[in-house]
């Protein structure tokens, strides 16, 4: 269906894509993951024909996508991060404009198709609303329906859920799930749960190159490359380095809040996690630096906090040695598991498992 061969693209002499190649079969779904600036969006824009690679070729159904035919309609639909609906048209007009003007479909036929597509994305009653009257999730679903109106052979999604709250994300993911097996999809996302659920194959990109590719089972659960492992770990966990006692507390709190939001945990859970972090930091020496890793289980409501300190022999969570009894008793009340160990290289490890009921 789509074959990308050795494409290279530079901006101001810096390579955004460096010899990228992959193949994708008909009605398959491929997810592209990677950190910011790794070249994911440039790759998608090259496939869409919005950017022109300096080297290499892109073939869709055996036809090369050259600069010349990239200007016309190539039966490629693209869903953007910011929806890009036409704000001066209502939903129905957003959907019917291109089929009428580009494909030459009659107005009546286009409207019938538009209603069908709107039903498909669950927005049958919103046909006469304007984009500014819709929620973010509804806007993105309209954007998907607008692409589907053009009967694309390939759909490209550029971080379709990154501007959405958890509810809107779930709405859009539901639509994307329905499209799987109906249409070939290439999706850029940071949402590992979406990748896990929807992808037939995954590409991990770094510095404009394809670092690793494979099935979800291989790439998500047994990544071969260290860079992939590190990226996935960063996606799953919140990692924060505290250099000294004057560290940026508001930043740490913001990171905890973002992490809790990512899993749809409410404000109560956030305040609870924040309290545990605050109390444990009260008990530890911060001047020598420590690493704080917050991780949540994918399958159940379980969150753990792992703290690694440099070489320290003291037992910080021992009632006899703890510097603050109140903090210690609070932690004992807030956590189900408290472990304090020393690893092989002598670094102290503290492992806390937060009380499940308080996370709900």
């Amino acid at each position, binding site marked *: 269906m789509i074959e990308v061969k050795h494409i290279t693209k530079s901006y101001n002499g810096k390579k955004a894509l460096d010899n990228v190649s992959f193949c994708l079969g008909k009605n398959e779904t491929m997810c592209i993951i990677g950190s910011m600036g790794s070249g994911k969006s440039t790759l998608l824009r090259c496939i869409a024909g919005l950017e022109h690679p300096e080297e290499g070729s892109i073939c869709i159904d055996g036809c090369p996508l050259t600069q010349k035919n990239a200007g016309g309609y190539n039966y*490629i639909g*693209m869903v*953007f991060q*910011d929806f890009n609906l*036409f*704000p*001066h*048209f209502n939903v129905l007009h957003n959907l019917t404009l291109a089929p009428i003007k*580009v494909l030459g479909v009659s107005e009546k036929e286009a409207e019938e198709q538009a209603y069908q597509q709107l039903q498909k994305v669950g927005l049958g009653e919103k046909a006469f609303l304007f984009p500014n009257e819709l929620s973010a999730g509804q806007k993105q679903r309209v954007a998907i329906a607008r*692409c589907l109106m053009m009967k694309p052979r390939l759909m490209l999604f550029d971080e379709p859920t990154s501007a959405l709250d958890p509810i809107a994300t779930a709405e859009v993911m539901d639509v994307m799930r329905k499209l799987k097996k109906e249409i070939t999809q290439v999706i850029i996302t940071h949402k590992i749960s979406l990748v896990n659920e929807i992808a037939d194959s995954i590409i991990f990109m770094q510095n404009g190159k394809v670092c690793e590719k494979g099935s979800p089972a291989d790439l998500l659960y047994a990544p071969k490359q260290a860079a992939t492992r590190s990226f996935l770990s960063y996606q799953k966990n919140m990692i924060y380095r505290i250099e000294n006692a004057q560290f940026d507390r508001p930043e740490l709190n913001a990171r905890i809040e973002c992490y809790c939001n990512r899993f749809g945990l409410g404000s109560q859970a956030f305040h609870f996690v924040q309290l545990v972090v605050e109390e444990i930091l009260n008990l530890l020496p911060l001047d020598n630096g420590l690493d704080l890793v917050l991780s949540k289980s994918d399958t159940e409501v379980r969150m753990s906090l792992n703290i690694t300190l440099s070489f320290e022999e003291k037992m910080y969570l021992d009632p006899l040695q703890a510097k603050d009894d109140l903090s210690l008793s609070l932690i004992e009340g807030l956590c189900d598991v408290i472990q304090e160990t020393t690893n092989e290289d002598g670094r102290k490890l503290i492992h806390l498992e937060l009380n499940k009921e308080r996370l709900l």
Partner: protein
Amino acid sequence: MIWGVSMSWLQDWQQQIYRNFLSDDALSLILSGFQNTLVIFIFGSIWALVLATFLTYLNINNKLQWLYRPLQCFVATIHDVPAVVLMMFFYYVIFSGLLNGVVVSIIALGVYSSGSLSRIFKIHIGQVGKEQYESGKMLGFTSKQIYRLIILPQAVRNMLPLVIGEMKVLLRATSYAGYIFQKDLVKAVDSIRAHTEDVFLPLLFVSLLYLFLSSAIVKIFKMLNAKFFCHD
């Protein structure tokens, strides 16, 4: 007593109105002045809009920058010159005697307004954003269709208040036409003032007429926007 005073005041006003506006000479002066002012304004606006559209087209077209830059430089420079000086310069220096005052006023005012109008056009087209262009392109529209159906309707709606403002500036600038020929509205009213020695009524009349024209501009531009650019 009061009735008598009122009647004499009313009769006085009737005479003043007749002397200033309805006597044969005054009426023909006002009508021809109003007609000239209206012609200068209408054709001056059309010329300014055409010139500004052309400049904007050159500006957004990367291949025509070599033509845009000197033209924009010229237009931007003359925009800093007072409109009346520009009109006199066009009339006495550039076209000295070749064209009549109405035509020169139209040309000068069009050039005067086109610089700022083209800046307004460019900024508002830019504000619509390349995302809209790209989403149109992904749906298979040609560049012309994208501009006509997607970008311009949004840009026009946003720029309308500023364009109306610029048109009002152009309307006010028509009053300078009297410096290069003697038959515009202000000059006509000034002649009547000199002849009748009444100051209040002629000036009130011309002020109200400009106010009326100003409101008409707002109405006309809003109607054009509703007819051509608001699809829903």
